[in-house]
């Protein structure tokens, strides 16, 4: 047997079973969902079809637009909040902590919360922000409030706080990685040339960490837009997100074609954001080069 055939045989022995697995349990399901988005619905079932009715409903019914815009708005706010918290932390870790061990410890401490049950982290905010909750009881205990406030829970504010809290480590990780890559000599050179610290940050550090910032935004945005658990827990009945609507269509509402169409819309939003940040990063790289 010659080497070329050996190489080919090796490939097939190694890879035919996994390839089959990927096609059957990953590609096929995605394709089925895509095709169901073109099915029509005849209550209580759906029938195979090829029509754009489901997408038309999404386009024409303003309540879907409201939900979609709220999803995007909340996700952007979450990303911004996570950025506002994550950047200083990452910067501090990368540049200000001198001891390598302490830095490793603090970095691990930053990502440890990711390993703590997601559900419990979201749920704890409910116990903190609720009318019977810790924040209210604390404020009443110290005498700031006379009676519990309902302003903290079951609104967009609560969703942003909860998700920003959950996803901040996803912002810290890529920013920290890009900060670590910056040669210290560059910063020192800038200071040496008399640049003030803020202008060093603004002109050198921030542009060089843009890839990390973009990655962080992409992570947090994608995670927020797809999260249907936090909204259910802390968002309340009037703060539906697109993810909740999709979950409902596949659950109680039993309208799979509409749910599938919404899923396809979400898929394109997420892929769009990923592609855009990819393009931005590449453009930025060219500017720097």
């Amino acid at each position, binding site marked *: 047997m010659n080497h070329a055939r050996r190489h080919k045989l*090796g490939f097939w022995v190694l*890879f035919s*079973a*996994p*390839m089959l697995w*990927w096609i059957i*349990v*990953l590609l096929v*399901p*995605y394709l*089925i*969902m895509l095709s*169901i988005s073109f099915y029509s619905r005849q209550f209580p079932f759906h029938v195979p079809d090829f029509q754009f009715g489901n997408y038309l409903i999404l386009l024409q019914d303003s309540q879907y637009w409201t939900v979609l815009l709220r999803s995007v708005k909340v996700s952007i706010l979450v990303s911004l909040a996570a950025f506002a*918290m*994550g950047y*200083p*932390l990452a*910067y*501090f*870790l990368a540049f*200000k902590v*001198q001891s390598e061990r302490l830095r*490793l410890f*603090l970095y*691990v*401490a*930053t990502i440890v*919360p990711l*390993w*703590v*049950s*997601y*559900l*419990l982290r979201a*749920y*704890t905010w*409910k*116990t*903190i922000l609720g009318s019977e909750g*810790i924040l*209210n*009881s604390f404020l009443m*205990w110290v005498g700031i409030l006379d009676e519990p406030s309902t302003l903290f829970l079951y609104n967009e504010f609560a969703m942003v706080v909860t998700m920003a809290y959950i996803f*901040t*480590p996803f912002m810290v990780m890529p920013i920290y990685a890009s900060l670590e890559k910056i040669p210290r000599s560059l910063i*020192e050179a800038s*200071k*040496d040339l008399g640049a003030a*610290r803020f202008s060093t940050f603004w002109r050198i550090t921030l542009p060089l960490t843009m890839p990390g910032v973009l990655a962080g935004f992409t992570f947090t945005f*994608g995670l927020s837009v*797809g999260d*249907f658990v936090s909204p*259910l827990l802390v968002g309340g009945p009037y703060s539906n997100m697109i993810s909740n609507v*999709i979950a409902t269509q596949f659950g109680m509402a039993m309208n799979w074609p509409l*749910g*599938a169409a919404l*899923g396809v819309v*979400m*898929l394109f939003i*997420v892929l769009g954001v990923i592609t855009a940040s990819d393009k931005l990063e590449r453009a930025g790289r060219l500017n720097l080069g």
Partner: protein
Amino acid sequence: MTTTQMHGIATTEKLGSRRRRPIDKGTSALAVAAMSVLAFLYVPIATLMVFSFNDNPVTRLPLTGFTLDWYHKALTNPDLMTALWNSVIVGLAAVAICLAIGIPTAFALDRYDFPGKTAFRRLVILPITLPGLITGVSMLVFFRAAGVDLSLWTVIVGHGTALTAIVVTNVFARLQRFDRRIEEASADLGAKPWQTFLFVTLPNIKSALIGSSLIAFTLSFDEIPVTFFLTGRDNTLPMYIWSVIRRGITPEINAIGTIIVAVSIVLILVSVFMMYQENQKGSTR
């Protein structure tokens, strides 16, 4: 820091001190901000832990007294224990799938060229790129179309599919840094391909395998979006917690949460320690 100190020496004492003072102020402001963020990340976890020992069934301040009742209740709650056990089984089985599919996939991506490779690579990482919700829903319609009843099995397949990308990306990254010449040396010394894989390749990607298995297991243990759509009558732990907290809040959940936190921290310390050792090895090589 060192340059500013050098400046201090190089310029007059007055200029040096004038320069240094605002830096310290800014740095300490940054330190306070960073530590506040870190503290913020631990507020809910601390809350969880504190209230798991508080004897008031309502989670509110002030604290009323210390108790271990909630731990006792949690650990003797048969539903909770069944769900916990299910989650362990699902996690282990999902990791087995991740390794069985992920290792050969990573090798194929690293070592072979085949038509559609780029598209294939994108497909494989879709489950960690897209919201889990989409993967969950897709697999739901798939299983329904295939006439498969939802059970722990469908959850296992779902987790396996959604999390294999973790193993693929980790092992692939390791293989990219892998010195292929040690495999050549092994073949040169008479080892057949399977012997080279077993004696040389595997031991050298071990840390990537263990690391990604740990991550995959913890993610499976905590998975909601896919499980939500694929679970049948049997609950996993997150699904059980979900069903409980939708009805109301109970400190029992705090207790089980605290246990999970403790176990997670041990696992993290183990994996960080292993990563650290691996780095040490890498730097001296």
